[in-house]
């Protein structure tokens, strides 16, 4: 508005110069007479009309445009802030996901290590059990073999003894054996 007023003042100040210039010579652009007042009034009306019909809508449009731009800028700023916020949130989520993944990985590694240790211990225990079983079985086999060997040796020795005794005993021996047995029975009594 002030600019309009300044332009009007500038034009009003310019009028005397124009009037003087026209007064010096016949047939100038502006004549210093009553028509000047009418022209001034016309100019004022024109100025008012221009102001009313063009300048104000233009200013309103410009304000509206300015506001729209400002709003767009604000929205862009908000969007940027939102985007930044989302980016931050996303980054936080990624970080959290990374931390979770790290934790899961560490846990999985720990579980795997525990499982491996458990399997190794189980394998060791199984191996020890197998070894103990094999040793026990071997001991049993050895004991059985020894027993069988002793039995065979005993059977063989007794068989040989029986054969030798049967061949070597005569009637005197038989009598002596019976006497000894009866005497032995008497000692027990």
């Amino acid at each position, binding site marked *: 508005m002030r600019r309009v007023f300044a332009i009007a003042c500038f034009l009003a100040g310019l009028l005397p110069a124009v009037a003087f210039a026209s007064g010096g010579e016949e047939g100038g652009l502006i004549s210093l007479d009553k028509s000047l007042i009418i022209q001034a009034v016309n100019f004022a009306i024109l100025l008012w009309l221009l102001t009313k019909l063009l300048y104000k809508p233009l200013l309103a449009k410009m304000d509206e445009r300015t506001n729209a731009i400002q709003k767009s800028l604000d929205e862009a700023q908000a969007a940027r802030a939102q985007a930044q916020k989302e980016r931050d949130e996303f980054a936080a989520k990624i970080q959290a996901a990374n931390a979770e993944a790290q934790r899961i990985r560490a846990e999985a590694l720990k579980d795997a290590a525990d499982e491996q240790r458990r399997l190794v211990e189980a394998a060791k225990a199984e191996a020890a059990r197998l070894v103990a079983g094999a040793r026990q079985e071997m001991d049993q086999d050895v004991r059985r073999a020894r027993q069988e060997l002793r039995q065979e040796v*005993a059977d063989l020795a*007794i068989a040989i*003894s*029986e054969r030798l005794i049967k061949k070597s005993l005569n009637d005197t021996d038989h009598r002596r054996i*019976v006497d000894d*047995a*009866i005497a032995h029975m*008497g000692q*027990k009594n």
Partner: protein
Amino acid sequence: MRAQEGTARRYAKALHMAATEAGAGEATGRELAAFLDGLQADRGALEILERPWIKPSDRRAAALALAEKSGSGKLVRDFIGLVAERGRLDHLAAIIAAYRDLIDADLGQARAQVRSAVALTDTEKARLSSHLQAALSKRIILEDSVDTNLLGGFVAQVGSLILDGSIDGQLARMRERLARGQA
């Protein structure tokens, strides 16, 4: 086998009671032994008497005829008839053994079955009987036999008591010690 012994013991006890009342304990034992000898000698009669499809009355009649033939008294004949009727003639040997044990117990005596590699002399029998009598505090009736399977010595059995004075027994004990790893 154990059931047969139990059955035989019941029959023997019943006969023993009847014979003791009649005062013919030993004679009854002898008659029973004579009947058993006769029955075992007559294999055909024994087989017929042991057939399960022969009627009990027929079995009894056949057994009574055999008992009479062997010279058994009335008590023994009746007993044999009862045993045959009930199909227990296969128990007769066990019944006679149980009856003999009861009579021996009455008389305070015991029978010693002695198996020896060679026949025992009278002196040896007397010494053995003497030792057994001292050990069991009973009069001993020695029933000796030669067992050619024995290498040497003898084995005496009185009831459930076994006295092993044989080389075979010594060798068997030695075999056990060797098998156990004991020298």
